[in-house]
Each structure stands twice: as C-alpha cells, then as structure tokens.
C-alpha cells in the first residue's frame, strides 16, 4: 500500500514569529514589517515540509489567529464576538456573529485588519504539494452565533467559498470540518471547481448526499466509511494531542493494506496544539519515520 502524507491546519509559530506578533500588538512593528516576517516564516515551513517529504500540506496559516478569523474578517456581515472555547480544549477562538453573508473583501493581498495580523491569508507555494485551506462550512456555522436566516447564510457562504476559490485561482483545497457535519452535500459545486481534500470529524449519517461527488480524498477516523466517495481514502492518525514522537504509524495502518492500494495518512488536529519543537520532529513520523 502506498502511503500519502498530509499535514493540515495551523502550524505552531516559531519563537521569532511569536515575538514579532508581540511587538506588532504593541505597535513596535509595522504591519508591513510583520507581513515580511510571516512570509519568511512560511518559506521556512515549506522547506521543512520538503525536508520531511510530506506529500501534501496546507498553508501554515501563520497569521490566522484562529481557524476562522481571516475568512470571517473578509466577509461583510460577520462580526467578531467574545472568546469561545474550541471543543473541550484549553484553546479559544473568537466566536463569529453572523447576521448575513455580504460582500467578499480582498483576503489574499496585503491588508490591515482589526484583531488579526495583516493579510494575505495565504502565502502560496508554487508546488503540487501545496493546499489552500478553508474551515468547513458546517463547522464555521456551528462555531458562530447566527442571527440571520440559517439556510440563506449557509447557501451564501457556499457561494462565497466558490468566489474565493475562483478569485485566488485555487488548484487544490483542503476543507477541515472539526465538528461533526450534517451536510457534506454542500460541497458538490466546490469539488467540481477545485481538487478537494475533506477532513471530517465523527461520522456523517447522510452518505447518500455524497453520491456522484468528486473528492480527491476524504480523511476521517474510519477510512472505510468514505472510501467509495473519493479517489484516495484517508485516516487521521498522527496524534496532535500527544508529544510522543514514535506513534507506530506503520503498525496502525497495516490493517488497511489489503483493502486499499493508496491511503492518505494525516494529523488528527492542527499541529498548533503542539509545541513547535515537537511539531518539527513529528512531521518525520507520518510514514513511520523517526
């Protein structure tokens, strides 16, 4: 069986970047200067991915203050609410308050935004390994306070995602649903527009909605559930909640070798839950390395 490694989500920031943000927050560093540092740090991350032979990786999202923020800050009609706990962790995000989905603002050029480091939201790498990242529509809505019409907002959000994909000319996109999703069917048009990796949490009940959709990979806790709805099934297996390096990945995926010729091996959560020094080691463990 061929293993394809995938790292998605926010990657932990280096000390250099954390200090830079500290200075930027205190007004000791301009947004332009900060933006250059984010760019440099992103390039270092890409070198690291190359060194660790990671087959696919998302943007490191170094200037995303949480999984939602640059996206929701780029859509008229969404405001930032109070801090909310992310799942049952000791990590918090700003709860979006959505009245409507308005106009899409520029999100991939230099721009100062309130309560987040400056944009662009992505620091592209011209490589087939590079994936753009968007938070799952179902999870974004679950993590938000909705004051407008839910179905309208959901539909408009999907249209806005299509607009983002088109505007940025995305070739490959990873969508991450950190919460259980009840409507995967919403991604139909998106999968037609861009090569799509979908990372799911829990198990979707309405599998019929997936019929005829063209995901490149659906990554979940159980690769059998979605294997017939994608080219390559995937499993979330590299533990982002443990600092132990040797997770015995090969041993764990061996059980699937008779059923799948190829399989995507991915992290269980953003590596942002790990100290940077551990994350930098753990990326070598995706195919059973160190």
């Amino acid at each position, binding site marked *: 069986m061929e293993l394809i490694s995938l790292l998605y989500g926010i990657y932990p920031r280096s000390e250099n970047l954390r200090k830079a943000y500290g200075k930027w927050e205190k007004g000791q560093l301009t947004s332009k200067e900060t933006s250059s540092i984010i760019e440099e740090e992103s390039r270092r991350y890409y070198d690291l991915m190359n060194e660790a032979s990671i087959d696919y990786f998302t943007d490191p999202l170094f200037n995303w203050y949480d999984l939602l923020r640059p996206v929701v800050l780029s859509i008229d009609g969404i405001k930032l609410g109070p801090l909310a706990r992310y799942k049952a962790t000791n990590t*918090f995000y700003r709860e979006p308050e959505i009245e409507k989905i308005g106009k899409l603002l520029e999100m991939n050029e230099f721009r100062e935004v309130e309560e987040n480091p400056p944009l662009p939201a992505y620091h592209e790498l011209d490589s087939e390994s590079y994936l753009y990242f968007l938070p799952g529509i179902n999870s974004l809505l679950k993590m938000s306070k909705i004051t407008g019409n839910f179905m309208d907002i959901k539909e408009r959000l999907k249209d806005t995602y299509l607009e983002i994909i088109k505007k940025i000319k995305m070739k490959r996109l990873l969508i991450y649903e950190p919460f259980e999703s009840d409507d995967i069917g919403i991604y139909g048009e998106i999968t037609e527009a861009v090569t799509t990796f979908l990372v799911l949490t829990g198990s979707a009940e309405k599998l019929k909605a997936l019929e005829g959709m063209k995901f490149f990979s659906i990554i979940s806790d159980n690769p059998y559930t979605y294997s017939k709805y994608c080219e390559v099934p995937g499993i979330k297996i590299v533990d982002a909640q*443990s600092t132990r390096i040797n997770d015995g990945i090969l041993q764990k995926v061996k059980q699937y070798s008779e059923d799948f010729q190829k399989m995507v091996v991915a992290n269980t959560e953003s590596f942002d839950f790990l100290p940077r020094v551990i994350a930098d080691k753990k990326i070598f463990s995706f195919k059973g390395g160190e």
Partner: protein
Amino acid sequence: MMDLVTQEIGSFRKPTYLSSKFRSYKEDEFIEVAKKATLETLDLFEKSGLMNVGVGGEMFRWEMYEHPISRMEGVEIFGPVRSFDNRYYNKGSVYGDILRKKPFHIEEVQLFKELKKNNIKIPVTGPYTLMDWSFNDHYKSREELAMAFGKIMNEEIRDLKSAWGEGTLQIQIDEPAATTHPEEMNIVLDSVNESVKGIEGIETHLHVCYSTDYGLLFDIAPSLNVSVYNLEFANRDPISLEGERKGYEDVRRFKETADTMTRKISLGLGVTDIHRDYLEPIPLIRERIEYALKYIEPERLRINPDCGLRTRSREVGFEKLRNMSLARDEVAKSL
C-alpha cells in the same frame, strides 16, 4: 464566621519591577523581590478594605499551571502552546510517574506566618485542571493522571498546613477546567477529594471560572469535600441597575443543592468582572449582593471578584476591590 466576608480570589497584576525580570532573578534575589511585591499588594488590599487577602496576589507565581508543573518530576515542558491569538502557555508533557520535587507554595505561607497575618487563603491548582492542561504520554487514562495529580496536591496541602501550624487554614483549589468535559465530573469529584483526603484543620474552597454550566458542579457538591464555592457571576450579568440579575440565576440553583445537604456549604459570589476595566458602581454591586441574600444567609455568603485580577492594571484592580468592599459595607449595615 463574620457576615459577608470579602475575599481576593488569587492573582493580581505584578509590579513591573517583578514581572519584567520574573524569570531572570537569581533564587535569593527573587524571594526578596517577590516579598516586597507581596507586601505592597497586601497594603493595597488592606487599603481597599478587603477582609481576606489571599496570598497577596500570587507574587511568587508566574502562572497557575506552570508554577506547580515545573516543580514536578515526570513532566517536561517542551515549549509554549497557544491558548488564543498570540497568547501561549507552557504545556507540560507527562512522560513518567509524576512526583513533587519540592513544595510549590511554602514560601508564601512562611511569609504570612512571619507577618502574623491569619486572614489568608492559599490558592492551589486543582488536579483535574493540571491533568486537562497537560499532554498525557504516560498514564493509561485521564482519570489515572488526574488521581496522580490529586495525590501530589494532597502532599502539597499537607505541607502547607504543617507549615501553618495551629488554626484553620483556608485552601482554595482552582479548577477552571472542572466543567469543560461534562462526562468527566466523576474524575473532578474523585481527584479533588483525593487532594484533601485525610487532612485536618483546613477549610477547602473550590474556585471554578470559565464555566458554562455550574449545574454540573452542583450535581457533585453533596459528595465533594468542599466547604466554599467561589464562582463567577458578574461577567454574565447585565450592568443595568434594577435588572433581573440574570447573571446570578445560578445562586438559586446553588441554594437548592445546599438545601439537600446536611453539611453546610458557602458561596463566594463574584461581583466584579475581571475581563474589563469597567468599574462596577457601588449600587450595582450592592444589588448583586442583595440578590444573592434572597437565597443565602449572610454568614454563608462571601464576596469576591469573579476571578483573579491579574489581567487588569493595579490601579483598576484596586478600584474594583474598593467598590466591592464599600458595597459590602453598605449591605452589611442594613442587615
């Protein structure tokens, strides 16, 4: 016990001379500087009218998690992990059996003994929160790790009591994570009880903030060896006067739980929001206290900020405490 005792919850903003060099002082020098900061903070607390002064604002501790964790064997801190935005904390990895290398807070008790102060309350980090905020790379389950932390906290509290000597010592177990996994309330119960098991001469407080459901806590209260529950209310209450005091509805639920118990429990009522500089006016705090008095007898009600005031400037912290004390005095007069 006196009616409506005012109390600090724990942390208070450190003076810059301490915070700016906290990690770079040599040990002897650090103790002296931390003592100086404690005395200054005590003075400020006393001027504000505060009755119970805690440990003078936790000047010996950088942070509630890292302080005990860095004094244990079997745990390693590999680096900071993000809490939110660009805020980080040093999250420990438990890689072996955990042991206490040295007491965590003994120097604070010794200082207060020297000062002959007895109106103190010592905050310690709770075993469940220590477990929840750590990587568990060694113990078989979260429960096992929480119980191991419970045993360590038991040793610590025993040492604090021993250093204190005669007289009741107030210990406050801080458990901000207590209600974050509703299915694990049994672990909260067992590990907190383990922390105080067999220790005589202490009055145990439990401080829980960041909770969205205190009902979970009230459900286990009859079996929890805790006498005083110091909880936050102000940050969920409107600031308008003569309102319905919506943020304080859990006081009634607390009373319902207390009524089912033969053992008496008390409530520490959070009356000032520590997340913002807004200075709650005395009439508003008074209303909040009076609301709680509809359900709780004055000798069972203590008055405190929602949580530690470390996120506010020392000036704002002082003003908040002073208004709290003045409001308490006005209510006490009318009793």
